[in-house]
C-alpha cells in the first residue's frame, strides 16, 4: 500500500479506535493517541529512509479518480520539500501529545474529542503537503481550519472564542481568494488540453495566460499563503490564536500549519506562475524584510510569553519567505531547512512556555522571576530553545538562517543587510524574557513551582536532541532538500549569481 496513504489513514483509524473507548477512560484514550501518533512517526521515518533523494520527481505517487466529471483526483506524492515537512509534522505530533498530556482537561468537551481532533488534524497535515492535485490540496487546506478552530475554541484559554473566530474568518478569506484562482486555472486548463487539477499539467498553463491574468491568479494564491505564513501586514490573527490555544495546538499551528503558507509559495506560486513570481518578487522581499524586523520589535515589546513566541515566528517566517524569493540554491535550501528547524525550536519554546504558564497560572512575563533556582531543568529547556530561536551557531536554526542570509545577499544585498539586523533584535527578544523569567531573585508565587517530571523530560529531550544534532550535522536533511531546491530553480530558469570578483575570469 502507498506509504503516504498509509500515513494518512493511520491517524483516521486511530481516531475511530479512540471513538469506541469509553469517554471516562481518559488515560486509555491518551495512551491510544500516543501509540497511534508514534506509529505514524515510525512510518514517516521509514518513508524517509525509502526516499531516493537523487530523484527529483514526485515519489510514493498514487492517483485515484475522485470526482471524474471535474477531473479531480486523489493524487499524492512527495519530493524533498514536502517530505521534510511531513517528517517534521509526524515527529512533532507525538511530542505534542506527550508534552500536553493534561491539556484536554478543563476544555469545553471531553478528552476523547480532543484527541480525535488531533488525529484528524494529523491526517490533514500529511495530506496537505502530500497532495499533488490542486483541488485536493485546497480541500485539505480549508478543512484543516475546522479541527484547529475547535481545538482553540474548545480547549484554549483566555479569550479563546474570539481568537478562534478571528483565525477562522481570516483564513477563510484567504482561502476564498485561492479558490477563485483555482477556478480560474481550471477554466484555462479546459481551453488548453482539457480540464484538470493536476499540478504538473497546471504548471504549463502560464504559457497560455496574459500577464494580467497570471498576476491576478498569483495574488489569489499568494495572499492566502501570506495570511497563513503569516506575512506582515496579514499577521494580526496569529498572536491571539497562538496565545489562546493550548500549547500543543499552538505548536501545531505555528510549527506545522503556518508552514503550509511558505510551502505553498514554493509549490504553487512559483511553479504555477513563474512570471508573476518574478514580477512580485521585489514587493514580497520587502514585505519579508519588514516582517523580520517588525516581528522582532513586537516580540521585544510583548508582555505575554506566548504572544512573544508568536511574534518571533512572524520574524522567522519573514526569513523563510525572503529565502524563497531570493531564488538562489542557498536561499531555497535554507528556507526549507528553516521550516523544519523552526518547527522544532518553536515547539520547544512553546511547550516549555506552556508548562511554565500552567504551573504559574499566568503567561505574563512579569509574573515569573528567578525560575533558574526553582526549576532548573525547565529553565534550561527554555534557555536552549531560546538560543535556538536566536540562531546561535551550533544549533540547527543557525544553519538555516545563515543559508537564507547568504543566499539572499548574493542577489539582494540590501534586503539581506537589513534582515541581518534581526539577529541583534533576536538577542533582545530572547534574553529579555530569559532575564525577567529565569534570572533575578525568585519572586512571590514562583517559590514552589515543580520542576519537569519524567514525562515532560521525555517529551522535550528529543526536541533538544534534534536542535543540537542538526546544528552540527545538517547533512541528512540538506541531502534530501538540495536536489529539490536545485530542480525547482532550474525549472524557474534561475542560476546562482557567480562570485562577482571572479566573474570576469
Amino acid at each position: 500500500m502507498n506509504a503516504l496513504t498509509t500515513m494518512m489513514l493511520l491517524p483516521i483509524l486511530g481516531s475511530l479506535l479512540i471513538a469506541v473507548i469509553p469517554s471516562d477512560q481518559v488515560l486509555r484514550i491518551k495512551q491510544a493517541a500516543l501509540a497511534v501518533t508514534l506509529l505514524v512517526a515510525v512510518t514517516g521515518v521509514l518513508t524517509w529512509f525509502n526516499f531516493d533523494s537523487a530523484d527529483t520527481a514526485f515519489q510514493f505517487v498514487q492517483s485515484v479518480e475522485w470526482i471524474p466529471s471535474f477531473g479531480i483526483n486523489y493524487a499524492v506524492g512527495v519530493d524533498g520539500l514536502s517530505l521534510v515537512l511531513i517528517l517534521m509534522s509526524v515527529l512533532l505530533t507525538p511530542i505534542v501529545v506527550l508534552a500536553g498530556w493534561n491539556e484536554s482537561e478543563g476544555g469545553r468537551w471531553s478528552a476523547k474529542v480532543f484527541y480525535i481532533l488531533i488525529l484528524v488534524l494529523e491526517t490533514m497535515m500529511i495530506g496537505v503537503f502530500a497532495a499533488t492535485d490542486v483541488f485536493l490540496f485546497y480541500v485539505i487546506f480549508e478543512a484543516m481550519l475546522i479541527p484547529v478552530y475547535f481545538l482553540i475554541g474548545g480547549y484554549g484559554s483566555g479569550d479563546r472564542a474570539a481568537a478562534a473566530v478571528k483565525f477562522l474568518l481570516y483564513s477563510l478569506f484567504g482561502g476564498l481568494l485561492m479558490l477563485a484562482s483555482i477556478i480560474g486555472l481550471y477554466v484555462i486548463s479546459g481551453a488548453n488540453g482539457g480540464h484538470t487539477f493536476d499540478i504538473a499539467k497546471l504548471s504549463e498553463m502560464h504559457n497560455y495566460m496574459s500577464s494580467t491574468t497570471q498576476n491576478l491568479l498569483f495574488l489569489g494564491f499568494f495572499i492566502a499563503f501570506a495570511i497563513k505564513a503569516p506575512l506582515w501586514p496579514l499577521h494580526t490573527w496569529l498572536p491571539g490564536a497562538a496565545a489562546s490555544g493550548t500549547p500543543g495546538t499552538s505548536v501545531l499551528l505555528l510549527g506545522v500549519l503556518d508552514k503550509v503558507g511558505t510551502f505553498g509559495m514554493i509549490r504553487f506560486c512559483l511553479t504555477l506562475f513563474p512570471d508573476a513570481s518574478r514580477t512580485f518578487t521585489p514587493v514580497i522581499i520587502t514585505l519579508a524584510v519588514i516582517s523580520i524586523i517588525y516581528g522582532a520589535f513586537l516580540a521585544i515589546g510583548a508582555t505575554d510569553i506566548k504572544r512573544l513566541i508568536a511574534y518571533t515566528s512572524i520574524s522567522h517566517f519573514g526569513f523563510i519567505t525572503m529565502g524563497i524569493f531570493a531564488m538562489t540554491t542557498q536561499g531555497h535550501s535554507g528556507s526549507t531547512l528553516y521550516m523544519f528547524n523552526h518547527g522544532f525550536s518553536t515547539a520547544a519554546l512553546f511547550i516549555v512556555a506552556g508548562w511554565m504558564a500552567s504551573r504559574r497560572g499566568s503567561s505574563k512575563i512579569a509574573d515569573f522571576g528567578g525560575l533558574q533556582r526553582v526549576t532548573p531543568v525547565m529553565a534550561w529547556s527554555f534557555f536552549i530553545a531560546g538560543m535556538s530561536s536566536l540562531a546561535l551557531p551550533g544549533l540547527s536554526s543557525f544553519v538555516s538562517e545563515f543559508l537564507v542570509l547568504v543566499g539572499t545577499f548574493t542577489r539582494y544585498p540590501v534586503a539581506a543587510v537589513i534582515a541581518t539586523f534581526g539577529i541583534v533584535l533576536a538577542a533582545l527578544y530572547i534574553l529579555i524574557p530569559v532575564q525577567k523569567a529565569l534570572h533575578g531573585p525568585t519572586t512571590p508565587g514562583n517559590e514552589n513551582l515543580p520542576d519537569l517530571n519524567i514525562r515532560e523530560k521525555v517529551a522535550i529531550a528529543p526536541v533538544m536532541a534534534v536542535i543540537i544534532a542538526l546544528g552540527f550535522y545538517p547533512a541528512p536533511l540538506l541531502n534530501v532538500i538540495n536536489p529539490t531546491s536545485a530542480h525547482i530553480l532550474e525549472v524557474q530558469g534561475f542560476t546562482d549569481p557567480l562570485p562577482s570578483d571572479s566573474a570576469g575570469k
Partner: protein
Amino acid sequence: MTTSTSLGYLIALPLAGSIILLLAGRKADKWGHLLATALSASSFGLGLYQLSQMLRLEPEERAFTQKLFSWISVGTFNVDAGLLLDQLSICFVLLITGVGTLIHIYSISYMSHDRDRRRFFAYLNLFIAAMLLLVLGDSYLNLYVGWEGVGLASYLLIGFWNQKPAYATASKKAFVMNRIGDMGLSFAIMIAFATLGTVTFAGVKEASESASTATLTGIGIMLLIAAAGKSAQFPLQAWLGDAMAGPTPVSALIHAATMVTAGVYLITRSNFIFDAAPTAQLLVVIVGAVTLIFGALIGTAKDDIKKALAASTMSQIGYMTLAAGLGPAGYAIAIMHLLTHGFFKAGMFLGAGSVMHGMKDQVNMRRYGALGKFMPITFVTFGLGYLAIIGVPPFAGFYSKDLIIETAFNAGGVKGILLGSMTLFGAILTAFYMTRVMVLTFTSPERWEEDQHPHESPILMWLPMVVLAIGSVTTGYLFTRGDALVHWLEPVFGEHGEHTELLPHKVVSALAITAVIIGASIALVKYQFSEVDAEAPNKVSILTRLARKDLLQDSFNESVFMRPGQVLTRWLVKGDDNVVDGTVRLVGRTALGAGAELRRTQTGFARSYSALILIGALVLIAGIWVITQ
C-alpha cells in the same frame, strides 16, 4: 600543509567535560571540578604534543589541517567542519589551555564555597572548547561558531550569579553588544561568499590576490566591527566594565587573557585582507589608538579594582589592535603583546581575586591599603605583573610594548609621529593607573572597613599566580631573543619587511622608560605620599568625573540607541493593535456592513488610518525602490 587526525580532540575533551558536568547534575558536585580541570589540562598536554610535532617539521610544513566532516553544503556554498593548526593558532591553543588550566586550578579553591561550583566548571570547560574552536576553525564560518560560542560562555559566566538583577543585566548587555559585532562578522562572510565565492581562510587568501580593493575594504571593515565587539574596542567597548560582574577567575581568563583578544586574532588571521585594503587597515589603527587612550583614561579614575583592571585590558587590547593595524611590521608584535598580556593581566586578575578573597569580597581600593604585609605572595606576584604591564625592563611588557611604540613611530610621517605619541602617552597613563592600583591596594596605609582580617590565599590559588608571575617575568625576553616569535609567525604573516627607522631602538626605549617614570611618579606622589580618602572625593575635575562615568559610554548608548529603540517598540506595539489590526477589523466590519459600528469607528480613527496607510504605502514603495536598485 600536513594532515592531522588528532586536532579534534583538543576541542572534544573540554566539550565533553562541560556536557558531562551539565547532564550529571548534582551527582557530579563532588568530582566535577576535578574532571573539568583534568580535561583542560589534557588539552594543554595535547597542545604541547602538537607543538613538538610542529617543531620537527620545516617552517612551511608546520600547518596541520583536519577535515572532520562536510558541515554545510548547498550549491557552491561548501563549508567543512575543518580545523587548521598553524604557527598562529598554536600560540592561542597554548595560551587558552595553559592559562585556562591554571585558572581551573585556582577556581577549585576560589569557588569552593559556591553551591554551583560544578556548573561554574561546566561553563569554564564550555568556554575552553568554544575558544579553541574559534582559533582552530579553518574558515570564517567555523570561526563564527566558536566566536558566538565564547559569547555564550561569557554570557553564562558574567551572569553566573544572576540572582542579582544587576549581574543579569550585565550579562545581557555583553551578549547584545557582542551580537552587534557578530553582525559585522556575518556581513564579512556574506561579502566574501558573494564576491570571492569562498569563506575558508585559504580560499579567501588565494582569492584576495585578484579581488578588488573595494571588496577587501568592505570585508576588512566588517571584520573590524566584529573585532571591536568581541575585544571591547571603541565604539563597542561599553560591555567590558559591566562584565566584571562575573566571578574573578572568569575576568582573568575570558575578559583579560583570551576571549577579549579574539578580535586581535581575527584581524591578524585576516592579514591578507588588511594588507590589500589600506583604508580598512587605517581604521584598525584608529580604533586601536582611540581605545588605548579611552581605556587608559577610564582606568585612572576607577576605585573598583576589577573595573580598573578591565579598563586597563581595554587599553592594552587597544595597543594590540593598533599594532595589528600597522601591517606586516605589526602583526607578530600584536600577538606578542597579546601573549605577554595574557600572562601578566591574568595574573593580576587572579591577584585581585586573592585580595577579594582575603577582604570579604571588597572591591573598593579605597577600602584596601597595606595589604602587602598580609598577603606577601599575592603582593609579589601582582607586583611582578605590575612591573610587566607598565613596561619596566626586563619584564615581559617592556619588550612587547616597546616594540609597539617603536613600530608606531616607524609607521613614518605625521601618522608615525601621531601614533607614536599616542602610544607613549598611553604608557604614561598606564604607569599612572597601575601604580595607583598597586599603591592603593598594597603599600598605602590601611583604610579597611571594620571587621576585616586579610590573609593570604590557599596554595591552589597562589600557585597559579606564581606560575603566571614567572611568565610575566620571562616571556618578553624569550619571545624577543633572536626575534623568536617574529620568525615563528613568519609563515603566517609573511616577511617582516623593511621599514624606515624614524627613531633608533635605544631612543624609543629611553622614551618609554621616561614615560613610565613620569606616570608612576605622579601616582606615587598622589597616593603613596599623600593621604588617600576612604570615600571617593566629590570635588574632582570634570575629566575625573567623566572617567568615573566611563567617558559617558553608557549615557551615549542609552540615549542614542536604547531609549529611541524603546520608544519605537512601544510605538510599533500600539500601532500593530490600532493600525494594522485596526484596519483589518475595519475591513471586516465594512464587509459585514455593520453601519452603526462603522460610523463609530470612522469618527475615531479614519484620519489616522488614512494617514498611516499612506505612510505605510510610501515606506513600501521606498523599500521596493531601494531593493530593486
